[in-house]
């Protein structure tokens, strides 16, 4: 049974965004987000632009800054953190705890995200296919298939309509939702400990951790 490995491998999350396909050579035009009924063109333009940045010779730190500039407006990290905590746990946090929590959650997401970029920027064999968007209530989910030599990854970018246009509130990789994954773990930490314990857990550097 290869499920452990498939789940593991296939869940390599945001990084898969950066499997660089050779076919895309065009540039980073920002689609007029608000006007679009479908966030797919926006997503595609962002991914293309990120791939272009990865292909340049800029130093890593600079690449990171450029990429952050591109994706920060369309990835709602704060909402992701709030959703990951969930409606039952969110009210348990004081205003100040919320700020610290979100700050650390965002740091964590970004750190993990950029680690994965550096790992994947070498892969130039992947083919990216954008499937038809699905409307789910007032949200739109865009499935993206990333086919590389050794595995195919099915991703779903989930958008909602914010004040500033379409924004991503969750990403799914082979059925594994980032928000859901964090929520399960946060629930676990909060079932055993306090909010401060959770915030401390998040503060720890992103690195391998024992199970107990």
């Amino acid at each position, binding site marked *: 049974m290869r499920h*452990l490995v498939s789940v593991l491998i296939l869940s390599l999350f945001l990084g898969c965004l950066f499997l660089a396909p050779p076919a895309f050579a065009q540039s980073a035009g920002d689609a007029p987000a608000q006007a679009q009924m479908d966030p797919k063109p926006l997503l595609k333009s962002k991914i293309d632009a990120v791939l272009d940045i990865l292909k340049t010779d800029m130093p890593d730190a600079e690449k990171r800054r450029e990429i952050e500039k591109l994706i920060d407006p369309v990835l709602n990290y*704060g909402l992701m953190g709030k959703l990951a905590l969930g409606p039952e746990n969110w009210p348990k946090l004081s205003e100040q705890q919320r700020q610290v929590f979100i700050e650390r959650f965002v740091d964590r997401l970004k750190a993990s995200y950029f680690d994965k970029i550096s790992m994947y920027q070498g892969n130039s064999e992947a083919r990216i296919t954008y499937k038809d968007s699905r409307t789910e209530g007032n949200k739109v989910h865009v499935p993206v298939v990333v086919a590389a030599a050794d595995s195919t990854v099915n991703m779903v970018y989930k958008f909602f309509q914010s004040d500033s246009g379409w924004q991503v509130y969750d990403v799914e990789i082979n059925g594994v939702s980032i928000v859901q994954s964090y929520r399960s773990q946060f629930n676990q930490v909060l079932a055993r400990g306090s909010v401060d314990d959770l915030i401390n857990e998040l503060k720890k550097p992103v690195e391998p951790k024992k199970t107990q």
Partner: protein
Amino acid sequence: MLPDSPDGTTEPAPESFDGFGEFDEFAEKKDAEIFDPLSGYNRAMTTFNDKAYLWVLEPTASGYAMVIPVVARRSVNRFFRNLGYPVRVVNNVLQLKGRPAAEETFRFLINTTAGIAGLFDPAQKWFGLEAHPEDFGQTLGRYGVGGGFPIVLPFLGPSNLRDAIGLIPDGYLYPIDYLDNTYVAVGITVYERINFISLRLGEYEELKKDALDLYIFLRDAYEQNRKKEIRE
């Protein structure tokens, strides 16, 4: 960057956690309600698997990867995948998935012949025929059998009662399991595994960085992934 009221577009709910109603897709049952009678064993086995992977399997695979070129390792991987055809076709048929079963069969015929015993994948390259992996756990899930409780299997990782039981009938459909000599069969299985890992060096560590609690993280990821596989 702080969340400056990201849900400003919706009417604020009376509670302080305004906007959650709009994202009720995550309102799954809480961990406390997940029936996990083996959690003590499961955690210990997760730690064991983690060490076995990081200290033994991956170092072995990485040494192997230094000697054998990636092209060859991909072919080996395809060879073993081709042997998984009986499992896939039977489970596709059991789930009444006619077209996928037919495509699997064409894939097997083409790849076993033109693809030289499955070392290559002309079915995908020339005819665009994709694989349709299905196993008995998925077949059971398709017919409404729930996962039961989580079980972490030695070396294989997270699973649940249903999928662990499903390994038995699938084993009867896997040619390697029919080898007379058990040592040879185990040796081949280990080799298959090492080869597979050699194509994914470093990915597990990368993934693990996102875990606050490795056992819960893997258990949850496994269940989410299986739900999706069963749905499709």
